[in-house]
C-alpha cells in the first residue's frame, strides 16, 4: 500500500481492532523455527503478533498476555514438556480470572496427548505439516467475539 492509499485509509484506521496474538516458547526449548514461521503467517494475515521469544516461564507468559491485552496466546513447544508446562499456563490464566483468551499450541505433540491438553484449556493443536492457513482461520473463527468488538 502506498503512502496516499495509507492516508486514504486513515479514517477507517481510527476505529479499528486487530487480533493481537502473543506467541511464546515455554520452557527450555530452543526450536524456534516453527514459532517464527507462525509469527510471520499471522502477521501476513493482518494480525498483530507479539513474539516474546525463548525460555518463557508460565508466569512470564501469563504476565505478558495481560500486559499486551492479547486476544490469543500461541504456544510453540517441541521439547516434550507440554504435559507439564501447558496446563500450568492455563491454570495461571484462570487463577487470574482470564477466561476470554484463546490458547492454541503448535510443535511436536503426540496425538495421544491431544485429549489431555484439550481437557486442560488448550483449544487447538497444530502439528508439523498443518497448513498455516488452518491456524489462521481457526484463530479468526474462534477468538472471543466480545474481545474483537
Amino acid at each position, binding site marked *: *500500500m*502506498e503512502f496516499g492509499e*495509507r*492516508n*486514504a*485509509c*486513515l*479514517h477507517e*484506521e*481510527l*476505529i*479499528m*481492532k*486487530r487480533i*493481537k496474538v502473543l506467541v511464546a516458547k515455554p520452557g527450555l526449548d530452543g526450536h524456534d523455527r516453527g514459532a517464527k514461521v507462525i*509469527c*510471520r503467517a*499471522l*502477521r*501476513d*494475515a*493482518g*494480525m*498483530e*503478533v*507479539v*513474539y*516474546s*521469544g*525463548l*525460555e*518463557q*516461564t508460565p*508466569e*512470564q507468559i501469563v*504476565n*505478558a498476555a*495481560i*500486559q*499486551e*491485552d492479547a486476544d490469543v496466546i500461541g504456544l510453540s513447544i517441541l521439547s516434550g514438556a507440554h504435559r507439564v508446562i501447558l496446563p500450568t499456563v492455563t491454570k495461571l490464566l484462570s487463577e487470574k*480470572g482470564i477466561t476470554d483468551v484463546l490458547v492454541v499450541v503448535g510443535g511436536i505433540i503426540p496425538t495421544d496427548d491431544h485429549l489431555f491438553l484439550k481437557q486442560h484449556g488448550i483449544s487447538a493443536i497444530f502439528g508439523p505439516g498443518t497448513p498455516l492457513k488452518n491456524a489462521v482461520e481457526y484463530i479468526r473463527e474462534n477468538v472471543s467475539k466480545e474481545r474483537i468488538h
Partner: protein
Amino acid sequence: MDVQTLIDGLFKGDIISTTRLISIIENDFLKAEEISRRIYPHTGNAHVLGITGPPGVGKSSLVNKLALEWNKKGKNIGIIAVDPSSPYSGGALLGDRIRMREITGIKGIFIRSMATRGSLGGLARATRDAINILDASGVYDAVIVETVGAGQSEVQIMSIAKTVILVLSPGLGDEIQAMKAGTMEIADIFVVNKSDKPEALETVNDLERMLDYEGLNEKAGWQPVVVSTSSTMNTGIDELVTKIEEHQAFLAGMTSEKLHEKRAAMELIDTLITKIENEAIKKAKESPVYNELVKKIVEKKIDPYQAADIILKEYMQLSRQ
C-alpha cells in the same frame, strides 16, 4: 466493562483496567477522547523518556537494562515499544519483547508492544494516550518509549518525551553523517551502545566532534552528553541512569513556562491534525461527487489538486452552515 469503570480501576492501579484502556485508545479514537478527558488532569507525574535510533543498535536491549537498573533503585517503570505495521497486510510483528525477557514479570515493570498502524514518524497515533494512561495510573515513576527506529523521521518523539535518548552503535559512521540534519538535534543524551566492540571509541569521538561542530552542545542550557553502554556486558547503565536523572533535575529547575507551553502546543497540533484528517477524509468519502471525481482522475479529465479543491470547497460550505 464500560470505560468509566475501567478508569476507576486505573486510578486504583488495577493492571487489567490499565491494559484494557490502552487497547481501547488504540482501537477507537472516539473513546480515546472520552478517556483523555478524565485522565488528563492526573498526568504529568511520570518522567517520559524517549529512546530512538537506527534499527538494530540495541534500543530494546538497553531499555531492558535501564529498566532493571532503575527498578533496583525502587522505581516503577512503564515501557511502550513501538514497531511498524506492515503496509501490505496491516499486521505487525512486534519483537521488542524478545530483548526484554529479563524484566518480563518483574514487579513494578510493565511492557506494552504497539504497532504503528500506518502512522509515520516512529510512533503510533495512540502512543501519547498510552503514555498518559500509564502516567495517570500513578503507579509509574517513568515511562520509557522505544520508537520504531526509522532513523530519519523521529522528531515526533520530541513532543512526547521529556528526555530524548538517541542510541547509536559502532560502525554507523555514514549513518551518523546522514542523520545530523534532523535527528541529532532532538537528543538530550547520546548513547553509544555495544561499546564492548573495539570500534566504539571511534564512534564516541566522531559523535563528540560532531556535537562541537554542529553547535549542538548547548540546548536551552542543557549540555548534551555522550554515554557509552553495553547491554550485553551491562556496563555504562548506571552512568546513563545518572545522566537521565540529571536531565530530569535540570528540567525541574527550569523556571520558564516556555518548555511546557511548547510541548502542549505540539500536543495540541498533533491532535488537531488527527482530528482534521479524520473528519476531512470521512466527509470527502461521504461527498456525492467523490466517486465521480475518482473516475475523472483516472480518465485524466481532472488532476488531484483540482479534485481536492472541489471537495474542500464543498466541505467549507457545509461547515459554515
